[in-house]
């Protein structure tokens, strides 16, 4: 198909090469550091689960004890499997339990001992990697059996009651009503917990805790519903916050299908340390790549905190950076649910035309990515009637610009958690617009040098300028400097501050992490 926008290929190439230039030093940084959460995720892949009676997970106990004894710069696995080889405990769980009471001592083995400990660690972690592979194969098989949604965009609905046993029937009902993707929103504040809660949970605030058991319960329920509906229903959760790598590992193990996973969201909007975030990001994306999970990035957040017209180019910049970091970590185009949102003030003249221009720009810059199109929130006032109209126009942009994933807007946004009827009305809205105007992609060709083309070129130009400014910052990692001096979303986030900083460790030359090695090699043992 002929491209709808006449973008200068030289500018597009320049934008990508600038994103690469900004991103590469950060990747180097990620390769030379580890974090407590990366190490805990590695232990989870080796099968360590569960928590003590105060609900502190065993992975936290074990990583903390190893860190106290010998530090984490060599990775957690070598000292742990060395201790197992020395007979400190019969298995990993017992070792973690004994370490919690302080009755195990760890060392960094050398020579043959080190080689053997590493080998044993790799064998154990490989089991988790193979489980992820098996889950991916299961997903492929189920999609083949039940089928993908008939239409594009796929319809994405949010469920969030706080109680996993309430979420399940709601999610199943939403799927019956037409949702293709169910997202379970997390409890407020989970992103700042430095551990993953355990077990099935029934109390969350404005959302449900992400736990391995909750993942398993919901996936099993949606498998039933997929069978009933003859359509594979995808499940989404959030790999973000301080435990991003662990949540990613659990998502892979429990066959979640999509994960919210933005390269800079935690830094900018949660004040999580930049290095912690980039190290955790890289690991979690490597896991997602392996697990066949589609990531969803969070560019909508830039537009809710800044003006959606003035800040339009920051979305493009973030998409380009997210694309670079994603591909570097092994994700493929079909796994990049790059985000963008319908957040321009409807009072502004030509707001709809600008939305079209921005949406088309994203569509054309990333032609093979299943872009995630997010509904208005900032200008939803509580006037539900006006909100319903706005959502209709949002759906129209989605239909006209061939978006991949459409997050269904609720007219009760900013009022209440959606009523049963709100969700039904919202889906009627989507179905009407897709049915009535879905084919418009065929007829709709904005004229060359018309308003839409000009606006798209302008935004791309501003994005290139911003990337230019970022890459010309001083220092070893200009992107970190830019984040530190408030280039994104007005927030200044220096690299030596923020939550989770004390969980960042510089790797020693002999650092070993069998999970990262296997993810990078594509190995299964």
């Amino acid at each position, binding site marked *: 198909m002929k491209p709808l926008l006449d973008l200068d290929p030289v500018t597009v190439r320049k934008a990508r090469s600038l994103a690469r230039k900004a991103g590469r030093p950060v990747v180097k940084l990620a390769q030379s550091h580890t974090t407590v959460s990366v190490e805990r995720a590695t232990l989870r892949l080796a099968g360590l689960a569960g928590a003590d009676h105060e609900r502190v997970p065993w992975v936290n106990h074990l990583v903390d004890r190893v860190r106290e004894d010998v530090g984490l710069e060599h990775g957690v696995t070598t000292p742990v499997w060395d201790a197992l080889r020395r007979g400190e405990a019969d298995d990993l769980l017992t070792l973690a339990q004994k370490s919690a009471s302080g009755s195990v001592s760890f060392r960094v083995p050398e020579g043959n001992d080190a080689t053997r400990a590493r080998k044993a660690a790799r064998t154990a972690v490989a089991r988790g990697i193979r489980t992820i592979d098996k889950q991916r194969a299961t997903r492929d098989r189920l999609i083949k059996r039940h089928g993908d949604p008939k239409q594009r965009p796929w319809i994405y609905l949010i469920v969030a009651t706080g109680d996993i046993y309430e979420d399940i029937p709601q999610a199943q009902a939403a799927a019956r009503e037409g949702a293709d993707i169910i997202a379970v929103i997390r409890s407020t504040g989970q992103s700042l917990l430095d551990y993953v809660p355990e077990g099935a949970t029934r109390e969350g605030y404005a959302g449900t805790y992400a736990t391995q058991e909750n993942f398993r319960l919901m996936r099993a329920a949606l498998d039933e519903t997929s069978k009933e509906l003859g359509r594979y229903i995808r499940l989404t959760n959030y790999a973000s916050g301080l435990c991003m790598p662990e949540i990613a590992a659990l998502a892979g193990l429990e066959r979640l299908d999509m994960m919210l996973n933005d390269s800079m969201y935690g830094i900018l909007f949660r004040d999580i340390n930049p290095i912690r975030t980039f190290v955790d990001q890289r690991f979690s994306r490597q896991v997602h790549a392996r697990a066949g999970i589609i990531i969803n990035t969070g560019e909508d957040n830039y537009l809710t905190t800044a003006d959606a017209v003035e800040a339009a180019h920051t979305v493009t910049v973030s998409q380009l950076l997210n694309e670079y970091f994603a591909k570097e970590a092994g994700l493929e185009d079909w796994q990049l649910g790059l985000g963008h949102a319908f957040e321009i003030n409807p009072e502004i003249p030509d707001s709809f035309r600008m939305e079209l221009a921005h949406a088309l720009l994203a569509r054309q810059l990333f032609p093979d990515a299943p872009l995630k199109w997010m509904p208005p929130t900032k200008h939803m006032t509580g006037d539900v009637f006006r909100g319903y109209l706005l959502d209709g126009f949002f759906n129209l942009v989605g239909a006209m610009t061939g978006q991949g994933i459409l997050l269904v807007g609720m007219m009760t946004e900013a009022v209440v958690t959606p009523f*049963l*009827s709100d969700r*039904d009305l919202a889906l009627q809205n989507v179905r009407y617009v897709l049915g009535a105007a879905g084919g418009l992609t065929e007829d709709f060709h904005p004229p060359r040098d018309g308003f839409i083309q000009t606006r798209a070129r302008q935004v791309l130009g501003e994005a290139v300028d911003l990337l230019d400014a970022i890459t010309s910052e001083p220092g070893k990692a200009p992107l970190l400097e830019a984040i530190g001096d408030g280039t994104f979303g007005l927030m200044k986030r220096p690299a030596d501050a923020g939550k989770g900083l004390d969980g960042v460790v510089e790797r020693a030359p002999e650092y070993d992490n069998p999970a990262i090695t296997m993810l990078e090699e594509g190995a299964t043992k």
Partner: protein
Amino acid sequence: MTPQDPRTTDSAMPLDPMPAKGAKESGGGARKATPDIIRPYGDTTGDGMVQVSFTLPVPHDKRAEGAALQLAAKMGLEPALLVHAKAMGPDFTFFVVYGSAKHLVDLREVKVVEREFPLLTPKDVNAAIKSRMRRKLVVVGACIGTDAHTVGIDAILNIKGFAGEKGLEYYREIKVVNLGAQVLVPDLVERARAEKADAVMVSQVVTQRDAHIHNTTAMSAAFREAYPAGQVPLLVVGGPRFEEGSAPKLGVDRIFGRGTTPGEVASYLVHELAQPKATQEKR
């Protein structure tokens, strides 16, 4: 109240569409005087028309529609018109009902609870700080004592915010220093001095053995000790379990409870710290 009472809208309708003679002139002169007793307005004064929509947990059939009309009658809608009914899955039905509400509203009985400060938009907050303080308003926040629950303070301070409102970090004219969890009171005081804090914000969630009370009083005492009289920063605490009106007892300026949004806190800060010069002297 009889239907003939000249203050009801019913009497003004339908024969006398003009304002009642001798009605009080309101301040601007352009506004019509409102009667004390009013009814909803559909398309004619006094018709009482309202629209409601709701879902009943029954399958869609004749009985469900009857049930919807029964509910409408009990809500005071008479006559009620069921204009739309649609099944929401096998077990629920959605209805839209129009009807005339038989209830009257007596404006004289309406009581308005005034917040001691006006609610401002982020833009107004920024403008007020800029024009009246001529510098950024500095807020230092922390969870003190053993409390590690930063959800509250983060909801107010982090740009992500709470309930659809952005946190104080989002305000261009507010400088936020969020010290996080388990901050010692002396460290908080020291940091507040170093940052020249205008306001100090403390979150207390844990209430075991009244920890929130002890921590808060210790904090306010430490600030009074460390600062000359009259120069203590504005002390604000937040948490779900503080008693309303206990601020003076705890030695703080304001307590915010469950469900407080960043916008309310920002508006309060402006009210206390960025008032026009004349009223600011009081502090």
